[in-house]
């Protein structure tokens, strides 16, 4: 009986580990696709030297943030860390989930990487040619800001996932795999990755972040989950079922609202 419980517990831990890697991979992948769109748009129009220097400097700044925050988080007690991380993941994840539901039900337009790429190119072409420190300042600052802001979200996800599950390596591995896949796809496509099912990925990420946030936040608050680690899957299923129900209800409501306006006179 005890052996079976241990096997079940190990199975749940493995499932949670897989979910940490998957969550980190998908969340970081989406952010990296957005950063890639900015870098490609600027690099193609303004040239690659200043753009890539901007990417490099942003990467160094991000590495410094990870180096500073990572060890600092290790000294915080795991209960407190899970409470804070859970609260942040909940707030952050619920935003993703909410927007993904609104997009799936037609209340919000889908994010269009191709349109974003065209907009980025137009702005890059229209901007003036200011030189600073031997760099095309526009190309440098736009690629720096784009990579830094999208990268901060990646860092946040990796650090929160890694710290709460005490597995920085796994969360970082998920992010590294996403980086390899996105950069390789960008090089092969030589353009924005417009065929990425971005809303579906964001939906899955929103669900994962919210479920992890709920699980760790409650555990950090002192909750003893029935079924221990297995309850994470139950939370995921519970929130997933309700989110799909919301999509269905909103789609139906939207159809009813639009129907009279679209009906022929």
């Amino acid at each position, binding site marked *: 009986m005890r052996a079976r419980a241990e096997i079940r517990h190990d199975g749940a831990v493995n499932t949670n580990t897989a979910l940490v890697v998957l969550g980190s991979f998908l969340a970081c992948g989406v952010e990296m696709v957005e950063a890639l769109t900015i870098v490609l748009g600027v690099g193609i129009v303004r040239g690659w030297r200043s753009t890539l220097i901007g990417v490099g400097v942003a990467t160094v700044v991000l590495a410094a943030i990870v180096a500073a925050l990572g060890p600092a988080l290790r000294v915080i007690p795991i209960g407190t860390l899970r409470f804070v991380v859970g609260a942040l993941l909940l707030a952050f994840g*619920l*935003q993703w989930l*909410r927007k993904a539901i609104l997009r799936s039900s037609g209340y919000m337009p889908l994010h269009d990487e191709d349109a974003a790429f065209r907009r980025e190119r137009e702005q890059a072409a229209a901007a003036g040619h200011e030189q600073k420190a031997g760099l095309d300042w526009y190309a440098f600052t736009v690629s720096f800001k784009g990579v830094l802001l999208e990268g901060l979200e990646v860092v946040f996800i990796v650090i929160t996932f890694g710290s709460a599950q005490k597995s920085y390596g796994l969360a970082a591995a998920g992010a590294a795999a996403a980086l390899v896949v996105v950069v390789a796809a960008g090089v092969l496509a030589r353009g924005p990755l417009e065929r990425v099912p971005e809303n579906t990925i964001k939906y899955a990420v929103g669900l994962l972040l919210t479920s992890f946030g709920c699980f760790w936040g409650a555990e950090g*608050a002192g*909750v003893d989950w029935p079924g221990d680690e297995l309850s994470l899957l139950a939370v995921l299923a519970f*929130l997933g079922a309700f989110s799909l129900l919301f999509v269905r209800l909103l789609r139906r409501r939207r159809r009813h609202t639009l129907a009279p306006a679209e009906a022929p006179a």
Partner: protein
Amino acid sequence: MKYIRSFALFWWNFVVGDDWRVALGLAVALGLTYLLTHNGVNAWWLLPVAIVLLLAGSLWRETRNAP
């Protein structure tokens, strides 16, 4: 000053986002969970239910006047 404001705005958008009521509701739900569990009630059910209710409320607010 401009950079501090941009930095603060980034974190506000990142954590709180479009609907501050959801963030506030989550803080209250987490606080209640903490209080209940430290007073002998294992309130594991509170947070999942609160998330569903907060999400439903936020979606309703966002879509009620939409075309």
